[in-house]
């Protein structure tokens, strides 16, 4: 069953063809990785999928619905949530509050209800808090709930960001280089965490440079080079793919 389907998507910036005629599918419940050398267009592709950029042409279908024209927040509310390569936590907020923001799409009270502080909003607020704490516990950072998020070490900030995304209860989670800046041990933990997330029924699409992590956890890998897809296969086959090796190691045959 296909959750996300990218069909012949292209994006051009001035003279640079960042993504050209790219197609791939992400099956529900799988972990799929996007790899490729620097400048291959991975982050651009993420931005296209998550609605931060509009593709010049092509279709993006998520859960059977065309989402190309939707804004990023609409897409998020439909169950596709992303993280950022450079961590974007909300400054001045605690870890818990950061995650509570993630519950936004699952709560309703608006300006009027917020101003009047109706009983209904208290209850909702309590539910948001409980659910967020639950997520923090699940990620093993419950102890830091009341620390200011941006004061945590880098690795924990990543986890908070993922926690915030999980609070949206996404069907598809887009992770942009989740292991960037992490040490070996932390990368290992991140791998376990991603598998755990998949275990919760969340489909994962990630961009990652760390090959060991990619090979270990992903079900399928898409390789990009200069905005084009040059391979899509299981990790083991990708490792043997001549084209991929050529792209990564240079053209020395």
């Amino acid at each position, binding site marked *: 069953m296909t959750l996300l389907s990218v069909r012949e998507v292209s994006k051009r910036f001035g003279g640079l063809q960042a993504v050209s005629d790219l197609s791939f599918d992400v099956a529900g419940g799988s972990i799929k990785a996007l790899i490729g050398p620097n400048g291959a267009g991975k982050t651009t592709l993420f931005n296209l999928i998550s609605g931060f950029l509009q593709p010049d042409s092509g279709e993006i279908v998520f859960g059977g619905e065309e989402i190309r024209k939707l804004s990023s927040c609409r897409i998020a509310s439909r169950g596709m949530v992303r993280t950022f390569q450079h961590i974007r936590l909300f400054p001045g907020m605690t870890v818990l509050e950061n995650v509570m923001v993630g519950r936004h*799409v699952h709560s309703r009270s608006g300006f009027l209800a917020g101003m009047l502080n109706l009983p209904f909003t208290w209850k909702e607020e309590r539910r948001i808090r409980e659910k967020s704490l639950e997520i923090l516990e699940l990620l093993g950072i419950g102890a830091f709930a009341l620390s200011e998020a941006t004061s945590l070490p880098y690795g924990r900030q990543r986890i908070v960001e993922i926690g915030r995304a999980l609070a949206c209860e996404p069907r598809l989670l887009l992770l942009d280089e989740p292991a960037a800046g992490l040490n070996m041990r932390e990368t290992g933990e991140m791998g376990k965490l991603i598998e755990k997330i998949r275990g919760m029924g969340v489909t994962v699409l990630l961009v990652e440079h760390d090959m060991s992590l990619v090979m270990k956890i992903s079900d399928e890998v898409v390789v990009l080079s200069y905005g084009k897809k040059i391979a899509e296969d299981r990790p083991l086959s990708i490792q043997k793919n001549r084209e991929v090796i050529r792209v990564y190691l240079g053209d020395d045959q």
Partner: protein
Amino acid sequence: MVRRYSAVFAFALFLVAIQLATLFAGAGYYLTQLTMTAYYSLLTIGLCMLIGYAGQISLGHAGFFAIGGYVSAFLTTCDLTPHKGSALVSLLSKSGVLVFRPGLYGGTLLTVHPWPACVVAILLTVVIAYLVGGPVLKLRGHYLAMATLGFGIIILRIVLGTESLGAADGISDVPGFPLFPGLAISGDSSLRVSNYYMAWGLVILGMVFLLNLVHSRVGRALAAVHGAEDAASAVGIPTARYKLHTFVLSAVFASLAGVLLTHYNGGIGPSEASVMKSVRYVAIVAAGGMANLWGALMMSLVLNYLSLRGYFGTFDDAVFGIILLLIMLFAPDGLLRRHILADLGRMFSRNAAGEEGS
């Protein structure tokens, strides 16, 4: 939440204490300027919500104040007696929208009742704020400042150039605003105490609303938008809509303040729409510490009161300039937060979304 309301309660007690103090000192007249200050404070806390929490500067909020004040003043002073015969006018007067009232210098006038006038003013403000806010809030930084400044200037020019709005003289002889029997917003000195409590009661109500909002789901979302807009939108927060709603909310606060102060003062002039006024409001919010409703309220109370009493003499604008400059240079997070409230606990610092937006 208890803390939130205890601060409000303390503030209410403070206001009562002031009233009692003036009563015992036989100096009830101090309440006049305090009442006027209350209405300016209403605008200020609304603007604080926009600047501090949604991170959007507005150099045109005097424009919304003027829209409220002028619409209400125009409707409640425009004499429709000559059109008494027309079907619409007679229908309106039958339905109670139009009332006969004695003119200040004799004769009777047929004018719109303050209640419907107020409703029209607020509705018009909402419409204008939505129309203007939509495109304006797409802009950032200097462009946003320019666009809001431009909006303010347009309102000022329209007010100055339109004869039915009194051009440079503004509108005078605006009647009081009867809220319910025995209680009216009016500058009459016999109603001074009740007006004082009414005005500040409204400010407290506004404060409660805004404090609730800040600590609600919406407030959290606004802080998120202010802190990292793209991340907020990635978790499904409609950033543009939230900014717009906050803009409209603050415009309504400004407009309501305009309506009520106009009835209290008995008139309004174009100086209320001037750029300097807008700058003043921003100055007060900045002095209060941007994302700090209590700071904005306190600064507004002190500065507006001193200014309205004429303590600054010919240095009125200069004093605002100096305050603005010193605070922005040495305490951009505001005076109150840094020294006083920081000691009172983390009540506010948690919601302080750091350095103001850009």
